[in-house]
């Protein structure tokens, strides 16, 4: 068989999805799909770490998006009498201030909004491109598939970091545009995963049946193939979101982070790392928020993978 450069397991597997078994994989009709969802949810609920993570993540998002409105300080408000002060109950800066006299807690919460949003934007863009690209390549097959996957290979050989740095340089200012662009580079894995799934699925009876009934190609891709790749896609999302958050922090380290007065966890941590000995709160506060989020996203991701992958019972 031909191989793309990085084999995905579904691709090499001659019997990719177990045919019978107590929990058949997503089938053509809606009932089975729903029961899969219900079944997955039941299994997810058994995973304490994943459930706890889900709760914490929800809380985290709420705090980040609602919290700043409840605090007396604005994002770029300078407290002229409190430059770089330690956490204190008296002056109202419960987590201290930065070198510009701005409240660390408010900035951390705003930073959370940005970090979470850019991660979702990038993931969403990569998801859309990756799923469409992979599904089309896998479904059409033959030369088209070959050509499309060769393009993916070429993209893989382009150093990702280089592309990202250039994107940052070219787009400069608009942070969401940048992360949309990063998503547009990140989709390669997704395309491979979906293609692998599609290749496996399209040999299954229900697709052939749909074909025989005269259902058109695009409709088959849209109605049958994409919904059936949902499991791996959800897993991919929970893996990509933390990846993008870390990437964002790395770019901030290189000085390619969000523009002031906006901020992000990456920017705050990058500023704070130099202060670990003189103003440790500047490092600790955003780091804790980031670490908790990444922990939870990863546990949730693992939990979802366990719950959704029919082979892991």
């Amino acid at each position, binding site marked *: 068989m031909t191989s793309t450069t990085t084999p995905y397991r579904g691709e090499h597997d001659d019997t990719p999805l177990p045919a019978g078994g107590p929990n058949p994989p997503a089938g053509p009709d809606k009932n089975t799909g729903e029961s899969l969802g219900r079944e997955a949810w039941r299994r997810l609920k058994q995973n304490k770490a994943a459930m706890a993570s889900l709760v914490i993540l929800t809380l985290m998002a709420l705090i980040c998006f609602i919290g700043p409105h409840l605090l007396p300080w604005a994002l770029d408000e300078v407290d002229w009498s409190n430059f770089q002060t330690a956490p204190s109950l008296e002056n109202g800066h419960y987590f201290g201030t930065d070198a*510009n*006299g701005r409240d660390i807690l408010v900035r951390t919460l705003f930073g959370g909004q940005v970090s979470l949003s850019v991660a979702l934007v990038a993931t969403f863009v990569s998801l859309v491109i990756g799923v469409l690209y992979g599904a089309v390549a896998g479904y059409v097959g033959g030369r088209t598939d070959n050509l499309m996957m060769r393009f993916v290979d070429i993209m893989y050989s382009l150093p990702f970091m280089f592309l990202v740095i250039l994107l940052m340089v070219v787009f400069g200012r608009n942070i969401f545009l940048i992360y949309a662009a990063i998503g547009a580079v990140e989709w390669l894995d997704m395309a491979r995963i979906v293609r692998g799934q599609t290749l496996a699925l399209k040999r299954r009876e229900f697709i052939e049946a749909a074909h025989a009934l005269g259902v058109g190609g695009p409709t088959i891709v849209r109605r049958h193939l994409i919904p059936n790749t949902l499991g791996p896609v959800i897993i991919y999302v929970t893996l990509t979101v933390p990846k993008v958050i870390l990437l964002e922090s790395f770019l901030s380290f290189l000085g*390619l982070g969000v523009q002031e*007065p906006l901020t992000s966890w990456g920017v705050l941590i990058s500023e704070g790392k*130099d202060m670990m000995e003189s103003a440790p709160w500047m490092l600790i506060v955003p780091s804790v928020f980031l670490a908790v989020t990444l922990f939870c996203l990863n546990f949730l991701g693992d939990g979802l993978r366990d719950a959704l992958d029919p082979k892991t019972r």
Partner: protein
Amino acid sequence: MAVHWRTLLTALPLLLSLGTAQAATLHVDNEGEPGSLDPQKSANHWDSRIQKAMFDRLVDTAADGRLIPGLASRWDVSDDGTVYTFHLRDARWSDDTPITAEDAVFSLRRLLMPATANHNANLYYAIHNARAVNRGERAPEALGVKALDAHTLEITLDHPSGYFLQAMAMGEAAPLPRHVLSTTKRWIVPGNTVVSGAFTLGEWHPQSQLTLEKNPAFYAADTVALDRVVMYPLEDTNDAIRRFRNDQIDLSFAQVPSSRIDWVRAQRPDALRTAPWAGEYFYMFNVRDGALADARVRKALNLVVRREIITDKVLGTGMRPSHRFVPEAMSGADGVTMPGLDAPYAERVEKARALMREAGYGPDTPLTLTLRYNTDDDHKKVAVAVAAMWKPLGVTVELYNSEGAVHYAAIKQGQFDIARYGMVATVNDPIDLVGSYAAGGSAAAASGYQNARLDALIEKSAHTANAADRRRVLGQAEQTLLDDYAVLPIFEYVSNHLVSPRVQGFEDNVMDEHPLRFLSLAPPSTPSHSGE
């Protein structure tokens, strides 16, 4: 306990390095990897530290930055200040070939040849025909530089130049080993390099370390205390500070950033050397069009910036609040200052508000400006603080940071409202800063600033041979710039270096020049010094 562990675990590598280093070895953080050791091919100041250690100039720099005789034991200047005659001493290259005036001629011609593409060539444009040679319009032989005999060099200038001797003390002007360059294409790698200075090139591992060894053939070798200098190109100041604390380096040429200054002051006050430095940190206004074409707006923006808050509270690195364009520490004129800045702050704010109203900006007609700065935590802090100070004027500031290449390209093309700029003087002369705002200068080109009076004063200074008169003329030029509120001066730089108390011969000076040949290392005073 910690000492025991340290001895056990670090003994091996340290012993290895100390074994050969019974002789005096200085370990130096040199800020960055050299772009080139060829004195005419690069412009980083960390390159020039190495270049100057390897290649002596006709005019040398003392530990305190003063100019002293180098390869030339003395020189004469004609009364009109246009003919310099250098008398070379009997010195030899490290391969024992005599150093001659022909070597100096060869080097100056090479410096100005277009193919060399030297960054600082314009500092030598006073030499007869230099500009034409540099533009490729004349042959290098046309340059006004002549070897009268093996030990006498005559340089003819088109007009007197206040900083010509300083330029001759720069690495660019060092005589080069003509006999090596003509035969060896890669003459500046270990093994091939022939030097005239206090040190020769030892090993060079790019991005890791570069070793300089004492040159026994140097004419003043008996005055050089160090046997070896190891230069580390540390890009991360925190790395430098950690290695300094670990006694892996004795001296850091990197500037201590504001994020670390508190710690250094508290923990290592004995090692922090702070001194005024010939550089100005300012915001450049694009005066071509829009609100900033209006001097009232520029004045208002200047009035409300409290420099002392930035220097003391936001940065705290010892920078000095600036009300002028040429730092006080430089050899500029006295009494030059931006008008209006010495009034009490409340008054300044009132005045600024009034000016903004006059210019047609107020709560209903707010002004939005973009402030560009290049990526750096300290630049960011300053920009955030300044933006907050402008806010009461109803000015909304959009902060825009980009990496150096983009930032400076945007400035060059005039694509900015307000841009952060740091000018560090290459030579200790006001013209290096003020001249950039005269017609044809880089700052004038970038900002769109034009003032015939300033141009005339700069032109006049070029023909004023008397140093005091010239300084006064340049002072008037600077004052013109300030009266126009063409810039927003923020602070004068200081240099902040970590220098181990063991290092001797390190003298603070305004050009931040610390020739390695004058440094020495006292024996470790405390037994706890690592590894011994």
